[in-house]
């Protein structure tokens, strides 16, 4: 068993030395901008892909569903691999660079791909890059931050990331508005954004070597070991996150419930996710700061109250614009309170030499849990109807929140003692 777990609060990293502890490192902001540029690139293409495949290439949407499956699956599988490679090589920046790089390269292929197999390959490579880069990038955020501002750092990163995810589709649709057949123009714009992101990462983000740095500063450094992931705190976190993930039904289901009841939601149905994204980026930084103040474990658990409130909103037999907007704001708040916080917690509860693997493990548990949750919810939906199905999941979540609070209690109180 790995026993030596020095308190992260005591850590002094070169990036944070001399900087007031509450300020977010410029490395985090740079990584945020890299993610923003990359998300503009990826989401602009992803948003018009159904149109391109069905409308321009004349492929069927069944084929599209198949491509979408690749999208989700590949990313989850390689995520752990990316974390492992990052820890093993002690080069989080260059593993992340590889991930961003192959996603950018995929955009070049997209310019020439025209058959189903070619498009499927390009998408798989793009998602491969996303899977590989996520954990090492979150590791860079962790090592470039201080315990007092880790939540805020992730908040800043996720805010910039979500802005990119919101801007990408808007950019693509503005181009299509003026140029209805301008798919290749969008691909070229997408390639330009991705390339700038990769150059920015390569030249301006310092190549940290977390393990070597600690060895130099006299801390005990150990090579990566799988059993480092057996830390009981990480296990508790993974259990808690897994339980919550299974009770997190896809946003799409909530939008469908809203659409069925509210003419406002029906009119704006294809755009409801934009509302969620906007709430996400507005709340990301304030919630990150709050997490630093009250404790990230608490924030993670209480963030799920936002999801519970969103379910309640959707289950209430009320229509109208206000309830739709409230529901989207709650969903966005839920993501803002939990997404970056989970990565921060996973980093906190993993030995430093295994940070990337720990973060990757937690994120993979969540991804798989949500897949199971959404599939199960789909079955429930048709078995008992949407309204009752949402109510059942809401009750389950209402029970799970105090239960998870008990599971997480050691993690929360430990922080307060520290």
């Amino acid at each position: 068993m790995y026993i030596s777990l020095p308190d992260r609060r005591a850590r002094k990293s070169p990036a944070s030395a001399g900087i007031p502890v509450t300020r977010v490192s410029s490395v985090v902001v740079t990584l945020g901008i890299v993610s923003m540029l990359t998300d503009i690139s990826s989401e602009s293409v992803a948003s018009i892909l159904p149109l391109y495949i069905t409308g321009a290439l004349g492929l069927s949407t069944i084929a599209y569903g198949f491509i979408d499956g690749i999208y989700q699956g590949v990313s989850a599988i390689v995520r752990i691999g990316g974390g492992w490679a990052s820890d093993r090589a002690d080069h989080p920046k260059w593993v992340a660079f590889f991930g961003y790089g192959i996603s950018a390269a995929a955009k070049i292929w997209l310019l020439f791909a025209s058959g189903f197999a070619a498009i499927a390959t390009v998408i798989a490579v793009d998602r491969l890059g996303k899977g590989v880069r996520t954990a090492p990038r979150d590791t860079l955020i962790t090592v470039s931050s201080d315990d007092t501002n880790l939540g805020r750092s992730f908040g800043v990163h996720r805010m910039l990331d979500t802005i990119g995810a919101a801007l990408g589709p808007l950019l693509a649709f503005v181009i299509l508005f003026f140029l209805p057949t301008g798919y290749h123009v969008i691909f070229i714009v997408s390639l330009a954004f991705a390339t700038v992101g990769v150059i920015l990462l390569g030249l301006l983000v310092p190549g940290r070597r977390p393990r070597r740095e600690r060895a130099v500063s006299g801390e005990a450094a150990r090579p990566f070991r799988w059993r480092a992931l057996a830390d009981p705190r990480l296990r508790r976190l993974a259990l808690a996150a897994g339980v919550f993930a299974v009770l997190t039904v896809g946003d799409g289901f909530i939008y469908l419930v809203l659409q069925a009841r509210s003419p406002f939601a029906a009119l704006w149905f294809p755009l409801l996710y934009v509302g969620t994204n906007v709430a996400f980026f507005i709340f990301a930084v304030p919630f990150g700061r709050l997490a630093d103040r009250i404790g990230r474990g608490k924030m993670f658990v209480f963030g799920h109250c936002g999801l519970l409130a969103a379910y309640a909103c959707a289950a209430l037999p009320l229509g109208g614009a206000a309830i739709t907007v409230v529901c989207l704001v709650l969903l966005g708040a839920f993501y803002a309170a939990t997404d970056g916080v989970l990565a921060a917690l996973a980093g906190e509860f993993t030995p430093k030499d295994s940070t990337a693997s720990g973060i990757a493990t937690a994120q993979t548990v969540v991804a798989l849990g949500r897949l199971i949750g959404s599939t199960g919810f789909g079955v429930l939906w048709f078995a008992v109807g949407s309204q009752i199905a949402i109510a059942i999941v809401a009750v389950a979540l209402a029970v799970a929140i105090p239960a998870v609070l008990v599971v997480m209690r050691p993690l929360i109180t430990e922080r307060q003692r520290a």
Partner: protein
Amino acid sequence: MSRRVRLTVVVLSAFVLLGGAGAYVAVSVADFQAHTVLTSAQSTAPIGDAGSADGATIVFRSTDIANGYGFVARVPAADPTADRVLTGVQCDRVYAATTTAGDTETICLRIDRGILTTFSANLLDDSGATVRSWPLPGLPSRARLSADGELVGFTAFVTGESYGSIDFSTATEISTTDGTDFGNLENFTLIIDGQPNTAVDRNFWGATFTGDDNVFYATAATGGNTWLVRGDLAARTLTSVRETAECPSVSPDGTRIAYKKNTSTGVIAHWSIAVLDIATDKETLMPDDRNIDDQVEWLDNDTLLYTMPGVDAGDSDVWAIPADGTDASVLFIPHAASPSVVR
């Protein structure tokens, strides 16, 4: 490299790459608009009066970059390669019919492009004015009117949580053109091989009407299989007729149904067009081996029309093939999509 040099390189490359991309967009847009603004030199007409004393007219969506891309256009059925007459209406899927009063009625499914892109189905009267409008949950797919213009049906993909996540879910609605909604076909009772079916993954698409305004055909899918179903509007039922048949289209004389049939055994569908004789239950496969993904339109009782993607992205052509399967397909209208025959 010092940090200052690296910063300079990043700023310069961002300027060159993003600026270059911006310039490319500007040039492409200018080039496109120079070609697509309707000029007085092009023959234009209001959307109405499509049917005329001179015989049937083909109403379609122009996909000609140089001639009214995205606008509804028409040509005489007897002379499909004649200069197209463009209307001022833009649709992504269109279907037109003549009402019993002799007016042209048009169902126009649209991607309402903009910073916030939405989707709608619009029923247009003879003057082109929007009579009714329905919001759609995603990309337009199929649109139909009954031959007497009394019923309208349309299918859209359910785009869901983001543009990027179509998981092949469809929504099909049927309404009377004077204002009664029958709603989403998901709320009809589905009967497959005599058994009521309430499977989790039911999907419906591609409705088509018959001479009887209570009866229609559509596609039902569940568990990876598709069925041609016969719908009854009064009873709100959908009853399976035949397996592996999608996007039906009933011949003008009502004796046959053309549909697309998945002939692939693998994961990826390959559709061919087949014609079913209703009286004899005999299915004939059309001799066109290309992958055809469209809801067929009958030019007359002997000829089928369907859209095939063209060489360039966004371009397509309308092809014709004899409905008895005796001869190969021929190019019917180049740079066109979504044909409907207005009689």
